[in-house]
């Protein structure tokens, strides 16, 4: 039986140098292969992208430096497997070289009715909710996950 809910995730980042700088070369080079890996990973449903094939040109926040990544997966397990148990992990090793440290939460997870795609505005709200209230059923983290709502999606 197909699940009634899918898992949405948003994460934000501020790069330490311009995308075309030598310092960020590793990140830029990894974008295409890692996005392709995501697209072919079990449980992958959707990710935010422009015609360039990634989301790096999207600036949804007041702070122009903040980049966003938004995706939907069939389950928490499938997202977790991609993020932390695939080649993606090796790329994440370099996060301190590429991104500024964020003091506020930079990643939020939440459940959406299966078949729906969250908007960037909704993603912004979920991140704000997580920052304001800490992990809860409407916005949570890998470390403190919450189960999908019971029963059919509305």
């Amino acid at each position, binding site marked *: 039986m197909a699940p009634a809910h899918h898992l949405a995730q948003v994460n934000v980042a501020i790069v330490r140098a311009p995308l075309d700088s030598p310092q960020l070369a590793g990140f830029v080079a990894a974008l295409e292969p890692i996005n392709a890996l995501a697209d072919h990973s079990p449980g992958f449903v959707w990710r935010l992208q422009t015609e360039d094939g990634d989301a790096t040109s999207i600036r949804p926040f007041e702070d122009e430096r903040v980049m966003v990544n938004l995706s939907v997966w069939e389950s928490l397990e499938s997202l977790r497997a991609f993020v932390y148990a695939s080649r993606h*992990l090796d790329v994440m*090793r370099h996060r*301190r070289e590429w991104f500024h*440290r964020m*003091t506020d939460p930079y990643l939020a997870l939440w459940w959406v009715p299966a078949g729906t795609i969250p908007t960037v505005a909704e993603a912004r709200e979920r991140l704000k909710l997580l920052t304001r209230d800490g992990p809860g059923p409407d916005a949570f983290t890998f*470390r*403190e996950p919450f189960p999908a709502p019971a029963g059919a999606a509305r």
Partner: protein
Amino acid sequence: MSSGRRIYNGGMDRVPPERDLAAIGLLQDPVRRALYGHVVAAGGDVSRNQAAEAVGVQRSLAAFHLDKLVEAGLLEASFRRLGDRRGPGAGRPAKLYRRAAGEVEASLPPRTYETAAQLLAEAVDQAGADLELQAAARRAGQAGGRDAGPAIEQLLEARGYEPYPDGNRLRLRNCPFAHLAHEFPVLVCSMNLALVEGLLEGIGKPAGRAVMDPAPGRCCVAITSKDNQD
């Protein structure tokens, strides 16, 4: 409030829980210890006959010990038909043993290093000190490698990684940092890679190349042969 939920609260009594003591105590018997060691090293299901032969004891004695280990929670048993025959007359399913999930530990006096590790990891993660942590791990690995003999596999085995060959790679069955890696995967796995890289550098002669090669259910690091670009 929410951060309190993650703190490991085990091991606070002066004397470890009876269940853990009993399990560890069981392994004092050398035959039992050898059987347990064989099942764990096999990395999957092992039959009573296979274990008995590997350790060099009678099947019935092996069964006796293996079942005691299951009772104590150190091993798990399952039943499966080995071979192709099915239906009536195909024979009984074999009883198979594998390492049980879960952990057993006992420390005297009581020590809860995991609590401290969780807090330290959280602080390091918040502070963004990944690179400092990796540098410290590399140094520790180099020191460890220098003190050890030249064999990578032995060194990794001694450190609890449970290495096994897989094609031209050496894979690591066990993550020594399990819970911590689950909570802080990027921080702890990159630390682990640096540690293993350090170990290989410490050994000196071209010993192999450590690479990040994670998959669910195993350690994130693998060793490839030094010249192998694969």
